[in-house]
């Protein structure tokens, strides 16, 4: 079974600064995907970024980038130039790669507060 660990329950960052959220996972699979989802106070779960395990290049999406270390089973999220709208719960998630439906295994989340 897969497990996902987010060791930072809460974090705070000032507007325009950079923050990194940590995520580690455990799996014996070789083909899988990793995700960061954002859940603002509105509760809508929004995809932030996605990484395929077979790709060595780290995924980026505007101000969001990941540091994917496959051997260390680490998948951290870096948010640059933080904005007030980035305030949310952030969830790291793992999914096995397969040809059929595959569930997401989530971490317990990190609550990020962006302050003025």
């Amino acid at each position: 079974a897969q497990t996902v660990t987010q060791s930072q329950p809460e974090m705070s960052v000032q507007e325009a600064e950079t923050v990194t959220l940590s995520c580690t996972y455990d799996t014996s699979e070789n083909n899988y995907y990793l995700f960061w989802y954002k859940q603002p106070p509105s509760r809508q779960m929004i995809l932030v970024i996605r990484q395929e395990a077979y790709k060595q290049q780290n995924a980026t999406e505007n101000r969001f980038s990941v540091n994917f270390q496959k051997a260390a089973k680490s998948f951290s999220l870096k948010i640059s130039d933080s904005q007030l709208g980035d305030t949310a719960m952030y969830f790291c998630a793992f999914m096995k790669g397969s040809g059929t439906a595959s569930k997401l295994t989530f971490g317990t989340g990190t609550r990020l507060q962006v302050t003025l």
Partner: protein
Amino acid sequence: DVKVTQSSRYLVKRTGEKVFLECVQDMDHENMFWYRQDPGLGLRLIYFSYDVKMKEKGDIPEGYSVSREKKERFSLILESASTNQTSMYLCASSLWSDTQYFGPGTRLTVL
């Protein structure tokens, strides 16, 4: 854009009632999922479906059942609601083994 909708944002029910949570997606996705979200536990999978009338148990199926009569609609059923089923329920859909897109969630309170 993918759109996943859930029938209610907030729901209050009494212990023992039968509860239906509905989810509809408009992107012709094969897969649909029901998760529950509790503080400190993240999201946990209750059931999922990979085709019409097909379903698979997730990690915590006890006390729940599901129905998928049409491709776009996936229902979660609490046969006899209990207070420990008070939670946030999130529906998601995906195209094969791909990114899951979530609905806005239903906060269910069982009194």
